[in-house]
């Protein structure tokens, strides 16, 4: 067994003093060599575990480390008597029962942690002293310990706010979940373990902190996340591409990353893989809209959308519910609710213009025939999710002769009259229309329902039906109370497209508009149903021109009749009683 090299010669019989001096010199030399060797090792290992926080020995760079232990590997590994043997592990299993991640859309069922993840948790669940290793009779002292101190690295035993681990990432899983890379493609730094399971080690390399957070690849622009998560429309999304940065006011939108633009934060604009406030879907915040407000409060995104919701009286109430939206809910909302993501797909949203603005890209909806569409191609298809066939809708705001609160049926293009949302309107005689509107035009829900401070209203606020001071979420004022004094402001919404002159002067398609609107102070809404009249309810004779009377103002006449009859272009007659006047009938 003796090594083949000759034994080193020793200086024989040195008289005491010289020997002691030489011995001391040798000792000093040994020390210098050892220190120099170690320093060299550290210098060479700039990207190694040695220079990382996982070096818990006295030479470690972190605050949490041993004041005395010089061995680095010992905190996790031992060359002999290891357990579990694979990986020569030197720590005991915590034996904790963990709460795994779950969500209504998760296909990979994360059970109790196994394999490498269990090893990580022998420190990171915070239940075992960092210095408690199998190879030592007494725990190695660790400053900042004994167990891992509170902080982002201490996951605890509740892993429901952490990315799932220890599940089989199979081809079948990728196919059923969708938008996931095939496991066969994971041959680079992001890998599954030998049993095909995703583990902590798929994203983290405990020995290499080159990329920070011990990530196997840098997560700038979420390069790590998108290795597996391949969102269909992500390439075009503003959340992937925007160079917008925090303007410094308000709350830091990216408290858990070092990146400074939307594009660089990418997934982590909204999600975080650990300690996610929202738990499900690993959202940063449990309150869904808070994830959006982090940037869409004017501090990162150009426009302050949050202000529309928090400062207005008529809003889509995204803040009033939490945890009622699920990505896999039916397109026709069964339980009506609204969150930002009911109308927007943050994985697809972008700044492009067009009939369907990029902000509404990649969203599911319901078309005018009531069939689910994905993605929508028309804005109204989003609105129909809740304002069409959904149960539980509130009663209509106006009690009408033909009551109906299914707006899809009112504007689906099959009724006797409708605002031209899903199809060009029926009436070809609308002289009040202001350019560029014509009877061949179509419009969007957002032409009437919109923020009252947005560009549609001449303001500088954001677009979209987020919030308004005019109910029901109208871009401009639209008064509906009987005996409203006519003014440009009173019916500003109607006058946006319909020339006010047609209503305050004699003439036009209905020459008595002035008499009704100005003289009798009857709001537009008393005679007209603004959306339309559905084909199952109205007729072309009685309900053209959006006629569907407000029965709190208009009542049957002395003959018991309450109806309008069209008798030709710019001609018709009414049977009704209104403001005490008996129309039996009145013709024009």
């Amino acid at each position, binding site marked *: *067994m*003796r*090594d083949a*090299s000759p*034994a*080193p010669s*020793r*200086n*024989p*019989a*040195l008289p005491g003093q010289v*020997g002691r001096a030489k*011995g001391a010199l*040798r*000792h000093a*030399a*040994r020390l210098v*060599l*050892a220190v120099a*060797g*170690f320093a060299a*090792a*550290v210098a060479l*290992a700039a990207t*190694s*575990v*040695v220079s990382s926080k996982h070096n818990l*020995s006295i*030479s470690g760079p972190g605050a949490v480390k041993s004041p005395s232990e*010089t*061995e*680095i*590997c*010992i905190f996790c*590994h031992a*060359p*002999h*008597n*290891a*357990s579990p*043997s*694979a*990986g*020569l592990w030197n720590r005991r299993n915590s034996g904790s029962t963990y709460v795994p991640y779950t969500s209504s859309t998760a296909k990979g069922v994360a059970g109790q942690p196994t394999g490498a993840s269990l090893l990580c948790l022998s420190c990171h669940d915070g239940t075992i002293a960092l210095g408690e290793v199998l*190879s030592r009779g007494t725990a190695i002292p660790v400053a900042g310990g004994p167990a891992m101190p509170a902080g982002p690295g201490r996951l605890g035993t509740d892993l429901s706010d952490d990315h799932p681990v220890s599940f089989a990432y199979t081809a079948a899983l990728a196919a059923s979940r969708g938008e996931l890379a095939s496991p066969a493609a994971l041959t680079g730094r992001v890998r599954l*373990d*030998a*049993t095909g399971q995703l583990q902590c080690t798929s994203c983290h390399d405990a*020995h*290499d902190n080159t990329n920070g957070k011990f990530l196997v690849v840098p997560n700038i622009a979420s390069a790590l996340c998108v290795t597996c998560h391949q969102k269909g429309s992500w390439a075009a999304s503003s959340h992937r591409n925007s160079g917008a940065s925090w303007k410094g006011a308000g709350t830091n939108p990216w408290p858990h990353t070092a990146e400074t633009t939307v594009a660089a934060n990418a997934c982590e604009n909204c999600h975080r893989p650990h300690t996610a406030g929202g738990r499900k879907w690993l959202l940063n915040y449990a309150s869904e809209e808070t994830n959006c407000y982090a940037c869409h409060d004017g501090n990162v995104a150009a426009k302050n959308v949050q202000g529309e919701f928090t400062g207005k009286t008529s809003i889509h109430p995204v803040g009033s519910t939490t945890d009622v939206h699920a990505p896999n809910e039916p397109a026709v909302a069964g339980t009506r609710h609204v969150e930002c993501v009911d109308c927007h797909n943050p994985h697809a949203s972008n700044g492009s213009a067009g009939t369907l603005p990029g902000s509404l890209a990649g969203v599911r909806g319901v078309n005018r025939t009531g069939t689910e569409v994905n993605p929508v191609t028309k804005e109204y298809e989003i609105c129909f999710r809740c304002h069409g066939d959904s149960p539980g809708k509130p009663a209509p705001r106006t009690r009408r002769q033909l009551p109906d609160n299914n707006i899809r049926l009112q504007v689906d293009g099959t009724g006797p009259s409708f605002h031209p949302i899903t199809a060009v309107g029926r009436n070809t005689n609308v002289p009040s229309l202001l350019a560029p509107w014509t009877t061949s035009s179509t419009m969007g829900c957002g032409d009437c329902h919109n923020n009252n401070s947005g560009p549609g209203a001449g303001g500088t606020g954001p677009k979209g039906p987020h919030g308004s001071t005019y109910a029901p979420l109208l871009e401009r004022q639209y008064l509906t109370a009987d005996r409203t004094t006519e003014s440009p402001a009173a019916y500003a919404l109607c006058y946006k497209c319909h020339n006010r002159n047609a209503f305050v002067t004699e003439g036009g398609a209905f020459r008595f508009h002035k008499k009704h609107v100005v003289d009798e102070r009857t709001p537009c809404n008393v005679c007209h149903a603004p959306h339309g009249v559905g084909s199952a309810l109205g007729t072309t004779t009685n309900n053209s021109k959006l006629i569907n009377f407000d029965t709190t103002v208009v009542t049957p006449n002395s003959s018991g009749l309450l109806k309008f009859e069209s008798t030709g272009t710019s001609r018709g007659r009414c049977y009704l009683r209104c403001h005490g006047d008996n129309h039996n009938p009145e013709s024009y």
Partner: protein
Amino acid sequence: MNTQHLLERFVRTLAPLLLVLAWSTAGAGTITGSAHDFSTKAWSGGRICVACHTPHKADTTTTDAPLWNHKNSTATYTMYSSATLNATGLAVGGRSKLCLSCHDGTVAVDNFGGVATPSTFITAANNLGNNLGDDHPVGFAYNTALATADGSLEDPATKTVTIGTGTTTKTGTIASVMLFAGKMECSTCHDVHNTFTVGAAGTGMVKISNAGSALCIACHKK
């Protein structure tokens, strides 16, 4: 022999020994005073080498075993395995078998030529048993190809290391100073004779100080 002569002879004989003792307190240099110095044990008859070696009538059937004197183990061993292990051919062969003739705990330390009733078995952490699954693998070829396949191993053909301390050092590639026939064996890390070792008695007779886990990272590029 006069007194002067006796004194000179005494000095010539003992001075190196004293020096050796001085060395051994610092931890390295020779087997004397090391954990493998059995001279204080009753069964050794005051001898150091006898547990393993004999000058005459040695066991010539055991390979890699110069003048072998210790009874060999007949245990079969479970070798280390892991899903990410690239090394192949793990086995207790050659030199490591000699170590395990004491360290697997099946053969008494004092079971060597001339002892009537061997009874002293190795204990505690030094007893590896015949399950070596929880011990660092041995018996495998550690070469450039393995380093490349693994990705986080130093290339033994080019990585230079220094074993031992003080003047008892040797510097060379991993392959030249730590491997045996190109293989990792117990003696890759440990020096049974305490020649190229560091640290005081009882610290594992390792060839490179494990301060900063230098021994581990000599090969493991972590």
